[in-house]
C-alpha cells in the first residue's frame, strides 16, 4: 500500500503544520486587538497561534505577524492533473525565453483596429510599450517585433502590410459591435486571406471586449481574446501555435 500523500505545512519538522502569516486589522494596538488577531487566525483553521509582533501602522491600523500551526492538510492523490494548467499563459520573461529557444528569431506581429473601428484602447493595451495595468505590450518584448497600425485600417491594408513585413500573426481588433459590424469586418478579413491563398500563412487572432474564443473560432480565426487579456496571453498563444505548426 502506498504511503499517504497527505501534506501539511512544514516549519522544521514533518507535519508540524507551521505557517507564518502577516495581516493588518483596522484597530489600534492593545491587548484586546492582539487577542482579536489571535482568534482570527485560530478561526482560519489553525490549532495554535502566537502573535509574534504587533506594529502600529497609523491611528486605527495595526499589523500583526503571527506564527500558527494547523492540522489541515491536502491529499495530493485526490488532485487531478490539471489539463488547464498546461495552457496557462507564460509570463513576459518566460515567453521571450521560449521564443528564443524554440523559434530562434523575433516573432512578427501586426495589429490594428479594422474597418471603421477607431477604438484602439484594446489593441494599444496589447501592443504599446507601456501596455495595460503594469503588463507590458508586445513592443516591449525583445523576441517580438510588433507593428501597431492603429485605427480604421481596411482589411486590405492590414493584409498587405502583414505580407510586406512577413508577419507570423495578425491581430484584428473590433470594439464596436452595433449591427454586428464586427462580425462583418472580421469575416471579410478571413475571406480576403482565403481568396489570396494566404490563410495558412498567418496565425489569425480576433480581439475585443465582446470577442470570445468560441466566436472567433466560428468566424475562422485561430483564437479570440476578450476583456482581461494581456499581451503575455497573446504572445504565449502565438509562440506555442508556431511551434505546434512547425512540428505538425
Amino acid at each position: 500500500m502506498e504511503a499517504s500523500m497527505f501534506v501539511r505545512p512544514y516549519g522544521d519538522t514533518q507535519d508540524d503544520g507551521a505557517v507564518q502569516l502577516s495581516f493588518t486589522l483596522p484597530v489600534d494596538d492593545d491587548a484586546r486587538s492582539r487577542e482579536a488577531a489571535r482568534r482570527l487566525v485560530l478561526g482560519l483553521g489553525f490549532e495554535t497561534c502566537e502573535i509574534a509582533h504587533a506594529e502600529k501602522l497609523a491611528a486605527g491600523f495595526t499589523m500583526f505577524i503571527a506564527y500558527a500551526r494547523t492540522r489541515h492538510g491536502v491529499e495530493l492523490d485526490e488532485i487531478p492533473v490539471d489539463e488547464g494548467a498546461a495552457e496557462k499563459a507564460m509570463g513576459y520573461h518566460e515567453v521571450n525565453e521560449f521564443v528564443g529557444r524554440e523559434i530562434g528569431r523575433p516573432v512578427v506581429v501586426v495589429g490594428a483596429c479594422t474597418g471603421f473601428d477607431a477604438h484602439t484602447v484594446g489593441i494599444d493595451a496589447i501592443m504599446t510599450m507601456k501596455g495595460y495595468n503594469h503588463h507590458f505590450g508586445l513592443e516591449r518584448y525583445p523576441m517580438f517585433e510588433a507593428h501597431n497600425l492603429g485605427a480604421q485600417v481596411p482589411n486590405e491594408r492590414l493584409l498587405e502590410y502583414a505580407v510586406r513585413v512577413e508577419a507570423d500573426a495578425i491581430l484584428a481588433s473590433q470594439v464596436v459591435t452595433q449591427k454586428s459590424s464586427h462580425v462583418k469586418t472580421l469575416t471579410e478579413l478571413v475571406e480576403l486571406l482565403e481568396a489570396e491563398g494566404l490563410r495558412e500563412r498567418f496565425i489569425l487572432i480576433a480581439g475585443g471586449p465582446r470577442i470570445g474564443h468560441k466566436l472567433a473560432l466560428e468566424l475562422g480565426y485561430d483564437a479570440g481574446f476578450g476583456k482581461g487579456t494581456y499581451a503575455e496571453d497573446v504572445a504565449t498563444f502565438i509562440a506555442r501555435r508556431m511551434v505546434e505548426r512547425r512540428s505538425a
Partner: protein
Amino acid sequence: MRSKLRLPAGKIAEARELAGAIASPVHSYIEAHTTVTVERATLRALGADGVDSLGVPVPNLAVASLAASGELGGGAAGRYVSALLTRDLAQDELDQAIAGGLDILDAPEVDPAAVEAKARELVEEFGRRVAGNVAQRNARLAEFGESERSPILYVIVATGNIYEDVKQAVAAAEQGAGAVAVIRSTAQSLLDYVPHGATTEGFGGTYATQENFRIMREALDAAGENAGRYVRLVNYCSGLCMPEIAVMGALERLDMMLNDSMYGVLFRDINMYRTFVDQHFSRMINALGDIVINTGEDNYLTTSDAYEKAYTVLASQFINERFAMDAGLAPRLIGLGHAFEMDPEMKGGFLLELAQAQMAREIFPDCPLKYMPPTRFVTGDIFKAYTMNAMFNFASMATGQSIHLLGMLTEGIHTPFMQDRYLALESARYVMDNIEGFYEEIEFREDGVMARRAAQVLDQAIDFMRTVAAEGLFDAIENGRFAEVSRSKEGGKGYEGVVEKAPDYWNPVQDLIERGLGR
C-alpha cells in the same frame, strides 16, 4: 560638491552643448505650433470649468468648435473672452451655456482692447492664485523645514477611490512619507480630455481630476500638521493632456508632477510633435507654480538592460534638463529620474549601480534627483524584494539622492497594502538613519571600478547624443534610437490635435508666464 568620480568637466559641458543642439530645432517647431490641449489648458487657466451632461469638459467643447472651423491657430482665449463680454455673462454662466450647447464661435467680435483687458483680469487672477499657492507652500516648508528628511521619502497610493486613497495617504504621512503620489487609472494617458469631479472607481489607479487633487491636498495638509512635516502631493501630467493637468496642479497646490519630454512618444505611442509642444507649455505652467517636475528615465530600464543601456538614462537626463530649462524651470525644479535596475544576479553589480547614482548626483548637482527602486527583476518572492530594496535604500542615501521612491516588497504582485508601505518606510528609515554621514565620509578610489564605470557611461552617452544631434531628434526617434522603439513622425495618437499658430496667435496665459520669466 566635491567630486568623487573625477568626471572631466569638459565632457559634461560637451554633453550639455549636444543637448542644446538636439533641443534647438524642436524648440523652433514648438514656437510655431499649438495644440488642442494647450488651448484647453489656457481656457482652464482663464477659469473655464465644468462638463456637459455626457461628461465632456467645457474646454473640450469650446476648443473642438474652434478646431472644427479651422480657427484654433489663433488661440482659444480670444474667442472665449469675447463670448464672455458679448453675452455679459458671469464666467460660470458662460461655462454652463457652453455645456448646454452654446458655440463660442457664435459670438460677434468685440473691441480687441476690451478683450485684452478682460483677459488680463482673468489671467492676473490665475497668477495671483498660483502665486498664493507658492507662498503657502514656502511658508509651510519654512515652518516645518527642520524636520525635513533627505532624501524625501516618496510613496504611492492607488486604490481607484480617492477617499480610500486619502486613508492610505494619511497613514503614509504618519509613517514618515514626505511625498505621496496618486497613481492614475491605467490608460488615462490616452484620454484626450481630463475627467471631472471626485472619482471612486478606477482601474489600477485613481483618475487625476481637479477635485481629486483638492481632496487629497486638504487631507495631506491636515496630516502634515499632525506629523510636523509638509507632505508633498504628486501627480502625473503624462499623456494627451499634459498642459491641462499642469494647470490643475498649479491651481490646487500640487508640489511635484511627472513631466517627461519623451515618455508619451516612446511608451504611449503619442505623436511626437504633439508631445513636444505639450511638454513645453505644461512645463511653463509647472514653472509658474514652482512645481518640481519628475522625469521618467526608469522606463528605459524596465526592458532594456540596465548595464548595457545606462547611457540612455544619462542622455535622456541631459535632454530633459535642456527642455526644462527652455520652459523656464530652474535646476532646483528639475527632478531628473534614474533607477536601481541591474540584474541582482550580476556579481559586483552594486558598485556599478552606486557609480551611476553618484554620477547623476555630480553631473546634476542642483537638481532634486529622483531615484527609483528595482522592479524589473522583482518577483513574488517578497523577502528577496525586501532585501533588494534595502540595498537600494543604501545606494540612495550613500549618494545623496533627493527624492527616494520607496520600493515595495510586493512590487511583483499587487498595488501596495498599507502594511507593505509601512514596511518599506520602516526599512528606509532604518537604513538611512543608520548610515547617516556615509556620503560625506566616503571617497572613491581614483581610477577604480566606480570611476571607470561613470567615465564609460558618460562617453557612451556623448557618442549617443552626437548621433541624435546629427540625425535630428524627430528622425532619431523614427530610427528607433530611444528605448529600442521606433515611432513614425506623423503616427501615434493626437497628431490631428496639433495646429500651426496663425500670425495673430494670442495666448495671454503664455504671455503672463513669459513676463514672469523675464522674456
